[in-house]
């Protein structure tokens, strides 16, 4: 590897600081009592406690998935604290009352908690360890009937919606980590876009893990009623610790007739150091149900962080003519491991899906695309197009493509293409011979490689993602 390439992969993690704030952190360990404690702290109704306990019973019977192409020592689930929250002095009446230490933290991370901040136009729900600390623009959104709040709040304010939809897309026993989340989830975002409403601004949640031995188990639920549409963004960071933290989230999306949900993630959890010590285990279940006709769910993700990523944002295309999309850039460096992709389950007639996945591997990392396209016998006229490209930087990393294609309808059409490319000496020399230096050349090649995904991101995110990839690759190219 040339030195230009080398210099491009190794810039320090910018978000690795710890906020010194008094926390209410539960003792480590998981049992029915832990779950009752969490539920009690949140003053939850009995039906939700029952939901949790049922999930816990299911979880006890399950084992962690063995099939992903990632390696890690067994997780001791008794060594994790399942609840940690900054100590609130009193109930907050407005944003001005948020702990200044927290405000400072999110300011440093560039998250606009102040409604007058420069990124006005994005409503944010901020999750710090286990709890939502603030949600901006609630009042303004309420004017058009949109509910945007923490899920804990929604349990109390809108129990009928939570009862109806929680666990409806990702059942409690769906998989090991989803079952765990269903048992111990602490907070997350809830949003509900009523019939016919186009959400006037992007909604977003910013997740921050701060406490060393806590896990984060958030739960997000987004419902778009008939003809509604919303664009939702999610960002994540964590401090640098040399232990591994577990992040096991569940995200459920429901799109009714003609509804449109666009969900974008820029994931920059701490990835561990250059020797693979520390970092977040990001084991996430994200699934959207295109329940209504002509509905559309689009996932866009830029995955650059986490020691291990295990994540398959999926679409169940039940409504006729519904559309599922998945656009992904996954970058791994050092000793990071990613096994990520999507599932497109075609049930309805004339359903369509599109998958564009770009994997970039550098250092000693291992990057796998794993995707399922299933065409059920009922899905006449279904179409899928998948494109999975890998780029390798250096010869110590790996790039894998595991596309599962299952078709049970002769009227369906499925196409999958994959290729590999590289940034090598000859490419860089060609740029140099035209006067273009190494870093600029690499950034141009990477952005060109990821173009189809970046153009799906909202503008601010696209800029951030481009910068992030540059930072992450610093030192690895050349």
């Amino acid at each position, binding site marked *: 590897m040339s030195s230009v390439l080398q210099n491009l992969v190794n810039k320090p993690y910018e978000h690795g600081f710890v906020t010194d704030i008094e926390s209410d952190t539960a003792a480590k360990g998981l049992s029915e009592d832990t779950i009752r404690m969490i539920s009690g702290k949140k003053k939850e109704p009995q039906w939700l406690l029952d939901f949790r306990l049922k999930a816990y019973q299911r979880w006890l019977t399950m084992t962690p998935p063995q099939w992903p192409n990632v390696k890690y020592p067994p997780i001791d689930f008794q060594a994790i604290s399942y609840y940690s929250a900054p100590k609130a002095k009193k109930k907050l009446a407005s944003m001005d009352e948020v702990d200044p230490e927290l405000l400072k933290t999110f300011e440093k991370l560039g998250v606009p908690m102040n409604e007058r901040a420069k990124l006005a136009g994005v409503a944010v729900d901020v999750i710090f360890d286990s709890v939502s600390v603030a949600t901006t623009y609630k009042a303004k959104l309420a004017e058009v009937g949109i509910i945007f709040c923490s899920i804990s709040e929604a349990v109390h304010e809108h129990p009928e919606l939570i009862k109806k939809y929680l666990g409806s897309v990702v059942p409690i026993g769906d998989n090991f980590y989803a079952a765990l989340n269903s048992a111990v989830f602490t907070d997350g975002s809830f949003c509900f876009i009523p019939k016919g409403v186009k959400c006037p601004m992007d909604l977003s949640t910013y997740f921050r893990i701060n406490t060393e031995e806590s896990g984060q188990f958030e739960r997000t639920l987004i419902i778009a009623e008939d003809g509604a549409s919303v664009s939702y963004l999610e960002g994540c960071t964590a401090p640098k610790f040399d232990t591994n933290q577990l992040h096991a989230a569940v995200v459920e999306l429901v799109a009714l007739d003609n509804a449109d949900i666009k969900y974008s993630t820029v994931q920059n959890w701490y990835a561990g150091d250059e020797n693979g010590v520390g970092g977040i285990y990001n084991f996430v279940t994200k699934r959207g149900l295109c329940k209504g006709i002509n509905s559309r769910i689009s996932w866009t993700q830029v995955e650059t962080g986490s020691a291990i990523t295990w994540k398959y944002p999926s679409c169940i295309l039940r409504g006729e003519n519904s559309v599922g999309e998945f656009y992904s850039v996954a970058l791994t460096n050092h000793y990071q491991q990613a096994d990520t992709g999507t599932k497109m389950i075609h049930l309805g007639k004339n359903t369509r899906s599109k998958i564009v996945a770009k994997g970039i591997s550098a250092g000693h990392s291992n990057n796998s695309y794993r995707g399922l396209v299933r065409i059920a016998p009922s899905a006449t006229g279904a179409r899928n197009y998948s494109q999975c490209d890998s780029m390798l930087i250096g010869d110590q990393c790996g790039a894998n493509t595991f596309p599962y294609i299952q078709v049970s309808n002769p009227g369906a059409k499925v196409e999958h293409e994959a290729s590999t*490319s590289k940034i090598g000496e000859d*490419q860089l020399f*060609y740029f*140099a*011979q*035209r*006067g273009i230096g190494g870093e600029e050349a690499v950034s141009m090649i990477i952005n*060109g490689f990821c173009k189809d995904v970046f153009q799906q991101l909202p503008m601010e995110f696209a800029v951030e993602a481009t910068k992030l990839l540059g930072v992450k690759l610093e030192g690895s190219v050349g």
Partner: protein
Amino acid sequence: MIREDSKTLLEVRGLRATVNGIEILKGMDLTVKSGEVHAIMGPNGSGKSTFAKVLAGHPAYVVTGGTVLFEGKDLFVLAPEARARAGLFLGFQYPIEIPGVANSQFLRLAYNTVQTGRGRDELDPLEFDDFVREKMKLLEMNPDFLDRSVNEGFSGGEKKRNEILQMALLEPRVAILDETDSGLDIDALRIVAGGVNQLANKDNAVVLVTHYQRLLNYIEPDYVHVTEAGRIIKTGPKALALELESRGYDWLSEKPGAEHGAGAAA
């Protein structure tokens, strides 16, 4: 054209270079002055493509001896991109494909980088678009190729035209065209050669690296050099190329030492 008042642009003396520890160039000598067209010919493996890459600074080659002055200054202290900015252009034998990077974007970045290096103003995308389309007419290129990825899926002819287009944009002092004629049909060859002829002027110079005489029917060289085993073993006028065409290269090497080391076209 050989001129009285010309300046020396490139002066190569005793250049030696290795790749993977194997010596390929074993003492190349060449002097190129403004306004001149040189052709370097020779059998496969005689070092002519290596010579072109070493001048441009390809990282796989190690210079082990000799000097190269570019407009009087040491070329080897410059990084490859600095050589390009200083006005040394290499037309690649195998232009590299860069998926995802639009040709227009690449051309503009290259153009603006080189312009900035020369203390001139950059062009914004709209100005550049007008400018590049003008240059493309010269090479009879289809405008839609600006939107395609750099060289990706280009035919051999399109790739070579793209190289000459870049030469037209970057206005080098010395352009080394490495087997620009290979893989071209006669129409493409005519267009590419026409482009080179229009770009050649009294202030710059062109070095054609070629295996066949065919290109020289279209671009008339002032000097023809013959390489063998990493050295220029003979230099002559254009007629030498025709002689090589009819007699091959063997007759030259059958007379070892006859013209060795006397290859400078001074």
